[in-house]
């Protein structure tokens, strides 16, 4: 894998493009079983993060991820702000010092990030949140020895689809109780787009 600083920045930029494009889709998902702002939040947060990284200069991926984390934390807002913020902080701290991020380092970082999400959100898998994509995707990564971008996207898509069958226990969707079943979780969808963007970048350079 060996993700470079440049590629890390590219990832955030790519994610930003995707969130600008998918803004309405994510907002509509959040409208059905939430308050209808998730796309707006993600588009605002990643726009700011992309601008921040473009303006900065970074020695390591970890440095770039830290600035991304702080910006997301500040600019996404809502429930997803501290969640994505915490997760990116872990991606940064876990890879601190490395010139590039190896696949093993990425696996470990994702595992720590997922744990931090659970802690911050006081949530578990099956609560119908973004954790239902972070969790299964991280579990899948642990048993892999190399990056398979197409398979990543498949696994991610699978995980986000599965949130449809769940009943929400956390976040605003929880107020919809049994009515939340049948609808995809907005945070699960945004997590899918986030890592699909990384998969594409890795694929483009031939992985």
């Amino acid at each position, binding site marked *: 894998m060996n993700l470079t600083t440049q590629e890390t920045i590219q990832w955030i930029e790519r994610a930003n493009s995707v969130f600008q494009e998918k803004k309405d889709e994510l*907002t509509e998902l959040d*409208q059905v079983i939430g*308050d*209808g*702002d998730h796309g*707006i*939040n993600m588009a*605002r947060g990643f726009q700011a993060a992309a601008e921040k990284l473009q303006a900065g200069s970074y020695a390591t991926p970890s440095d770039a991820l830290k600035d991304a984390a*702080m910006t997301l*934390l*500040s*600019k*996404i*807002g*809502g*429930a*997803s*702000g*501290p*969640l994505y*913020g*915490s997760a990116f902080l872990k991606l940064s701290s876990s890879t601190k010092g490395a010139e590039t991020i190896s696949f093993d380092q990425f696996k470990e970082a994702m595992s720590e990030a997922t744990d931090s999400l659970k802690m*911050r*959100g006081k949530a578990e898998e099956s609560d119908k949140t973004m954790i239902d994509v972070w969790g299964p995707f991280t579990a899948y990564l642990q048993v892999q020895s190399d990056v398979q971008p197409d398979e990543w996207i498949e696994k991610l898509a699978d995980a986000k689809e599965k949130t449809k069958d769940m009943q929400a*226990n*956390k*976040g*605003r969707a*929880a*107020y*919809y*109780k049994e*009515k939340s079943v049948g609808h995809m979780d907005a945070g699960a969808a945004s997590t899918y787009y986030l890592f699909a963007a990384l998969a594409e970048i890795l694929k483009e350079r031939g992985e």
Partner: protein
Amino acid sequence: MKKLINHPSDVVLEMVQGIVAAYPNEVELLPDTTVIVRKQKTNGKVGIVSGGGSGHEPAHAGYVGKGMLDAAVAGEAFTSPGPDQVLEAIKAADSGAGVLLVIKNYSGDVMNFEMAAELAEAEGITVEKVIVNDDVAVEDSTYTTGRRGIAGTIFVHKIAGALAETGASLQEVHAAAEKVVQQVRSMGMALSPCIVPGNGKPSFVLGDNEMEMGMGIHGEPGLEREELKSADEVAEKLLQPILEEGVFKTGDHVAVMVNGLGATPLMELYIVNRKIQELLKEKGLHMTKTYVGNYMTAFEMAGCSLTLLRLDDQLYELLQAPCDAPGF
């Protein structure tokens, strides 16, 4: 979407600027934030900080003033502000005696305010928090997010703010605020949806002859969607689940708030209040103080909520204490 705004992405900043422009001697905006703080600081007074997503005006910036909040953090529309902004508010509100955070029980608010509290503690500021969850329309469960914080939050601001003004310690202010949370219950209902500026679509759809009981202040669903009822029937339906909580007993003294969600005329709130007071009298409760108006809104949603607060001598005194906040 008919709104008196400029660009949807500017509404929050322009709103707080409009607030400062209205009360330039009383409040100011912290640089590069949407945090409204009191201009006059009292040294050694416990700071009271609240906030959350915007769209609930006068909550929360309208409650900044002597006898209430020291700082209010305005997030984007219906979106909790990030921890960095909350941290700025805490720093501005602290004058050495620590800060109480008044948080409405939503995942986003709780997480962002808790992160800010951690950051503030790291900077050496003592922070306590209360999480307001007065909405009886939501099932109370530790397994889920639990109950929402709605208009009862205003009573927490008022009591904590008044006590802090007397020079009480953070511990005392925190205890009083917790007591309010224990003794306050609310229930809302809506006649029409609201529209988040950046979204542009109604938060839900109600038929011409429908209302929704138990509606939250962000368009979250309520208990049941049903045929539009008379004001008297609505009053009963708001009161009943509150009384079923077992918090309010015959002979108790209570404060009452009939709160408009934004688009409901004051006339209608008074008509609802008329029946509420009648029913409370029948139950043998003493109404010591009543508030009727728009205190915790949801943009242009039509509807109202009812809040009851059980008063003891301390709470009664603090409720009566003077207060300069323009929204109260």
